[in-house]
């Protein structure tokens, strides 16, 4: 990569990149995000490369891209320019795809995605409801570019926002634009980004830092990882704009050790950007100099908290400190610092390129723009979805997510990661934004969204999340360390059928002290799962305490499995799957379960095709 020394040179080079990409040329994009890699996409990419050569299709371009978001259906393959989407593509399918679709333009029915409801096959990516109903302004480029190619990013308009800012805008002007856009921190807090930048811009100081928080640690959430893996230059460009706006000369990306592909792609992107003169001294010939280092975290959940993250970069134990003095004045190494998360940074180039008014036209008054959610749990289309703020939970879960598998009933959705709240059916039409979610006792958090069906015990769910937080609390302050452990203890007692009514009072007395008395966000939000389930699913707690029953049939101590002799056909399936030989009986005769032996694993219940196994 040759160094680009001026705005004119950048423009000329970008034109070259665009011209090199004939829109009519056939391009095969294969999702190579971590999710699809787990489905085996690496072999599919290799097979496609081989097959193209074998069939003499030298003109066809093959791109291993970042995550497309439709993770449930991977490996994903899209054939451009038509945009034909094949899902669950196996190595064996590749020769046929190349021969029929790429060469002959024929669509292979068997590889198309079918709607779960009507089984109707859909040929084009853009027509699949999962994609059609989204608004992918940040995440959409992931499927179009090779994350290791800066040319790909430049060809879709990359680094133009940077050039625009450096050439035509003052630092204060960039801050003003971000303020006007109303961008709020996508890491979860929802603090106005422009205001944060403004404070740092206004603090005097030779050395200032910008930091990208890529320490995403919520179970089931991976939007930041996918952005870094799939479009690292958008994050770098965002940081460049932020650094120019506040007067920072150095930046850090704090990324967790568990994200090797993100680190690899980001490392390549930083190196190439530096060679291109987009990082380093006198960027694009301007007076602005800035560079980025990668700092790798050890994977402690609390290190996503800003003050703990900074301690960790500084080489200290990753524990939070009191934040009465703002990071804008004293952050990394005691210098003025701006810290935003991956998704927030990725929004910045779009805002500068298209303007605050355009950005404000998306989303709600209080929360403009889009948000990427990680839709997981009991939902048909698990994956990453980017939607305008203000969309209803119902649309996300049922229209985009395709509803609940197996036709079961929706029970709750947990938003905001482990310390978010569980939202019941009555609030499904809630417009999703920062303020509305907190009104119902949950939060935006980083955008994790876990869907639960009627076979979920809400006490058990609260216990699960509290247990996670108990293990991740750093243990520095009493309320968080002792408080969360005690919440867990009480919840555990209730799920074992040993709860008393006074336990609920104690939980409700303990929760506000943990919320208001803890030092950092981990403790301050930890009681959310407990409080929200107590608020919406109190009857379930009472059933555990008063009737010693688990209505959802989850808590082992409170249930037993029995076989209905009327319904049992004697197929012997339950006996075959039972790991402890508790389910037994002669073939073609009603079976039974030896309660002494039964370990309540539920294998028989899952296996029975005749609904003969009952949870009592």
């Amino acid at each position, binding site marked *: 990569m040759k160094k680009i020394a001026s705005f004119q040179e950048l423009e000329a080079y970008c034109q070259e990149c665009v011209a090199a990409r004939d829109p009519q040329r056939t391009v095969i994009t294969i999702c190579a995000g971590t999710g699809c890699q787990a489905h085996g996409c690496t072999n599919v990419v290799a097979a496609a490369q081989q097959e193209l050569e074998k069939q003499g299709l030298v003109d066809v371009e093959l791109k291993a891209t970042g995550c497309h978001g439709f993770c449930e259906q991977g490996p994903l393959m899209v054939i451009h320019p038509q945009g034909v989407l094949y899902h669950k593509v196996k190595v064996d399918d590749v020769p046929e795809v190349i021969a029929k679709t790429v060469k002959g333009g024929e669509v292979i029915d068997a590889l198309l995605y079918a709607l779960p409801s009507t089984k109707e096959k859909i040929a084009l990516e853009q027509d699949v409801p999962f994609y059609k109903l989204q608004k992918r302004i940040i995440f959409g480029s992931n499927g179009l570019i090779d994350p290791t190619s800066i040319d790909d990013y430049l060809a879709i308009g990359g680094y133009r926002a940077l050039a625009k800012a450096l050439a035509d805008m003052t630092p204060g002007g960039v801050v003003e634009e971000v303020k006007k856009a109303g961008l709020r921190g996508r890491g979860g807090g929802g603090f106005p980004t422009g205001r944060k930048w403004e404070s740092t811009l206004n603090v005097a100081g030779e050395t200032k830092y910008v930091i990208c928080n890529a320490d995403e640690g919520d179970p089931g959430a991976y939007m930041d990882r996918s952005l870094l893996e799939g479009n690292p230059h958008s994050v770098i460009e965002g940081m460049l704009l932020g650094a120019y706006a506040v007067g920072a000369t150095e930046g850090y990306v704090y990324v967790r050790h568990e994200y090797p592909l993100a680190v690899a792609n980001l490392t390549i992107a930083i190196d190439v950007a530096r060679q291109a003169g987009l990082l380093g001294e006198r960027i694009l010939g301007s007076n602005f100099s800035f560079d980025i280092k990668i700092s790798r975290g050890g994977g402690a959940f609390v290190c996503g908290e800003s003050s703990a993250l900074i301690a960790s970069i500084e080489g200290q134990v990753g524990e939070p400190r*009191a934040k009465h003095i703002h990071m804008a004045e004293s952050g990394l190494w005691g210098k003025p610092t701006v810290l935003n998360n991956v998704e927030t940074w990725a929004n910045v180039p779009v805002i500068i390129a298209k303007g605050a008014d355009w950005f404000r036209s998306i989303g709600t008054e209080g929360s403009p723009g889009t948000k990427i959610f990680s839709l997981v749990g009991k939902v048909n289309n698990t994956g990453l979805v980017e939607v305008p703020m203000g969309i209803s939970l119902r649309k996300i879960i049922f229209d985009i997510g395709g509803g609940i598998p197996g036709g079961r009933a929706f029970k709750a959705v947990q938003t905001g990661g482990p310390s978010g709240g569980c939202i019941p059916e009555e609030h499904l039409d809630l417009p999703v934004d920062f303020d509305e979610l907190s009104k119902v006792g949950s939060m935006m958090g980083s955008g994790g969204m876990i869907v639960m069906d009627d076979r979920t015990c809400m006490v058990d769910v609260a216990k699960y999340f509290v247990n996670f937080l108990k293990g991740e609390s750093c243990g520095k302050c009493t309320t968080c360390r002792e408080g969360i452990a005690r919440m867990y203890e009480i919840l555990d007692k209730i799920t074992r059928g040993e709860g008393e009514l006074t336990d609920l009072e104690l939980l409700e007395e303990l929760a506000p002290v943990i919320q208001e008395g803890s030092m950092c966000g981990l403790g301050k939000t930890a009681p959310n799962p407990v409080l929200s389930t107590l608020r919406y699913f109190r009857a379930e707690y009472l059933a555990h305490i008063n009737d010693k029953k688990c209505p959802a049939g989850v808590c082992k101590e409170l249930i037993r499995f029995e076989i209905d002799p009327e319904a049992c056909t004697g197929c012997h399936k339950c006996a075959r799957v039972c790991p402890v030989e508790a389910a037994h009986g002669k073939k073609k005769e009603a079976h039974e379960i030896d309660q002494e032996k039964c370990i309540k694993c539920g294998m028989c219940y899952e296996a029975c095709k005749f609904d003969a196994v009952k949870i009592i």
Partner: protein
Amino acid sequence: MMMIEITINGKKVQVEKGTTILEAATANRVRIPTLCHHELLEPYGACRLCLVEVVKNGWRSLATSCNYPITGPIEVETDTEKVRSARRMVLELLLSRCDTSPRLNQLAAEYGLTESRFSLNYDDCILCGQCERVCREVVGANAITFANRGVERVVVPPFGEEAEFCIGCGACVYVCPTNAIRIQEDGDEKIIDRWSRVLKLRACSECGVEFAPDFQLRYLQQKYDLAADFFDLCRDCRAMQK
């Protein structure tokens, strides 16, 4: 020096910018209980006992007074029902860890607490971190450290082995609010069980009394560049010589 006017419990007082709420309150004879605070150590904010209500720009919230620097006009209330119930819960949580400490029991009694509703998980250390900070910040020995996280958190010598940098000064014993660290002398040895530290004592070249750990004397000699024979005599014999 910039002075700021704040109110503490309704009374207007002038404080220097940067003073903590705890310092301002103490200077104005308002008592705020603490367990992890020591005036010689950096504020830490771990025990959460010094919580007070702060009203700033119309927003009311709980904040720890020990590490809250006053940078503008605020109202502080140290004894509202909210403050009292939060402190009571903090004490109840700590009491369920350690129910033998006289200081903790006395504080609990002040807040009307006779016993904790949580089951007792006995550990006489309440993790206030004063021992770790005094060793690091004041003594400079860095002999002990925090390990693990959450409820597994403990203060231990590095790698759980003998605290080989411990000079046996006893500062940690002195600052510990729950008497969790004990020091004893046995013959010519000084022993701190908690840090698995056993130190040989140096005998006075005059009277023969074993008066201080040899390791400690060598540490101080080096740190302050003292003469080789500086610590040959015990305190009494040195006083006699003068």
